[in-house]
């Protein structure tokens, strides 16, 4: 039993670390006119052995979840090599493009938005070297929604826990979604367990992170997300947990205690 608890703690700490890592990379205040520092950040996003290593390890299961959700909503041509061909996909908070690039390789017409110019520059540069056409923009969901653009698939992975006004955010997604489109959100739960893990990570492992980097009150419970999305006109009808294994892999679980994904579509007018 003790072993199981330790196992769970160690593995979950890893996920919490990666969320802190990602937060550091997106909310950086580094002066990007300094080329060396620019390159150092680029390395953080795409160096598989660098400080974002855990986020890379977390990528396959997030892609699987996004793919499963798209499939569940009857999108995609799954017998083809590029099953997402012709689907308009929006990656909100795309960072360096860890998810946007695979989605593009699978055939999606991908738009990636992030509030940080430096991050978008990194993403653009990497996409160019990967010979991928991804429309990266420094923008927010709200601004994009105001333009009237619509998407078949919208995902926001490890982003909603950093958003200051969740209801505005979900409302923007609702406006950006095609009538039969699918929305996918992955995030971290808010409870004593995830709080304790984040504290352990921050205090004992990532001592360099200033206190207060994360606002735990912004972490969102599945039930809250479900009801807030419903108010915004989105029905989230699937909640799946991501369980980290000690060997660095993740697997799907019905337990959403720490990391989880939620997906759904627009509420029909009569609901």
């Amino acid at each position: 039993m003790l072993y199981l608890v330790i196992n769970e703690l160690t593995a979950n700490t890893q996920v919490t670390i990666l969320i802190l890592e990602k937060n550091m990379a997106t909310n950086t205040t580094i002066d990007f006119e300094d080329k060396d520092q620019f390159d150092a950040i680029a390395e953080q996003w795409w160096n598989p052995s660098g400080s974002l290593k855990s986020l890379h390890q977390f990528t396959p299961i997030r892609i699987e979840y996004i793919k499963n959700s798209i499939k569940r909503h009857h999108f995609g041509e799954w017998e083809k090599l590029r099953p997402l061909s012709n689907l308009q996909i929006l990656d909100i908070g795309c960072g360096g493009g860890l998810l946007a690039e695979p989605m593009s390789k699978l055939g999606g017409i991908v738009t990636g938005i992030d509030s940080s110019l430096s991050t978008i520059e990194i993403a653009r540069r990497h996409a160019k070297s990967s010979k991928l056409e991804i429309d990266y923009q420094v923008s927010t969901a709200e601004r994009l929604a105001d333009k009237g653009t619509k998407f078949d698939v919208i995902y926001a992975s490890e982003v909603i826990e950093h958003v200051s006004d969740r209801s505005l955010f979900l409302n923007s997604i609702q406006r950006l979604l095609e009538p039969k489109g699918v929305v996918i959100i992955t995030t971290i739960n808010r409870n004593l367990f995830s709080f304790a893990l984040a504290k352990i990570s921050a205090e004992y492992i990532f001592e360099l992170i200033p206190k207060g980097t994360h606002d735990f009150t912004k972490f969102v419970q599945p039930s809250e997300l479900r009801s807030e999305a419903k108010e915004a006109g989105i029905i989230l009808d699937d909640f799946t947990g991501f369980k980290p294994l000690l060997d660095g892999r993740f697997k799907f679980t019905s337990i959403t205690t720490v990391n989880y994904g939620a997906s759904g579509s627009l509420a029909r007018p009569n609901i």
Partner: protein
Amino acid sequence: MQTNNIRILHGLNIIMVNKTPIVVVGNGLTAEVMCSALNYFGLEYTRLLSQRNDFVDTRTTTINMASQKMLSRLNLWSFSNENSTEIRNILVSQHKFSENCFDRNSEKSGLHFFLDGEIMAWTIENESLLKNCQKHNSKLPSNIENYYGNLNIEYTENGVEINDIRDKKWRTELIIACDGANSAIRKSAGLRSTSMATNQEAIVARINLNRLHHNFAVQRFLPDGPLALMPIRTQEAALVWSLSKTKSANIFNLSEGEFKRKIINALGDNFNKITLCSEKKIWGLKPSVTRSMGRPGLILAGDSNHSIHPLAGMGFNLALADIAVICDCLSSAKKNGLSFSHPSILSEYRARRRLEVEAIIAITQGLNRLFSYNSFKFKIFPSSLTNIGLGIMDSLPIKKQLAKIAAGGVLTSASLFSDV
């Protein structure tokens, strides 16, 4: 299959860079099967062959059930009775073999593994398997290129750059190193491999028993190391005799007649009709394992990843399981739109291979030490301890478990191991 060639103006010279998603390096069996398997999964690759003169491999390989299924799937399992032999019984003993050792129904001293007359494994001649693979692979639409000297490899964030001494260049997402136990690629990547200290060498030869072996593989644990006979055709056998380095040199240098007498002494007088039907060769035994199994941009397969004691004939089966798992990992990365250098591929590979590799190393090393290694404690209690060991192993659950593990596909699952 088209390789994407890029020209770089380098001073006045134009250097061709061959761009390919996967590079397989190696001249041997593992590389051949790796290429067949990649092709089976629709994964594009370039094979790099070194320009060394390959020796003729007179060794045989044991193929277990899981491996046989995999080779069948890859259309590499088309052998005549001349070059594949079924193993239906395995007899392991500490004592000389009696006259009726090849009679399945007679009382045996030692451990007798069998599956009610079913096939347990096959003995295949390496050369014949290699020819099958080469014949099959020659029809594949793949790129095969030669390289000269040692490869200079640079792992960068955007992929792997490979150069040979003639300045031929390749750019790839992933190298699969199938370049054997002394892998130059593993060494140049600075990957640490753990070697088990042994002072053993193996003498390998093919012998004619001049009697029917009835598909028995026999193995005798001698104080200096195990002596195994793997059945070939109806009356022949591949001899693998592990010995301490000092003894192996002495025995290897004996005349044919004296060498035969040593074998008869070791196996029992009823083997007195044996004749040698090949030259004998000597192989260094240095079991080793590379726990990292690679690095971003590099995956080790087969002996470059782990070389084990040949007493159970499991080495090539482990290599095939590596290949099967690598293909699953690469295929799932491709389905997720991930590059082949994505770190999750190596984590997945490591997680799925670690258990079997470590178990087989522990079993082969353990058996070798428990039953034959000439260590101090066994000199004090030579027969009693090993008899207890054999007694424990003869207990049904352990024997069954060992047989299951040896059959393959138990500690590793992969799509290539499923039925055709």
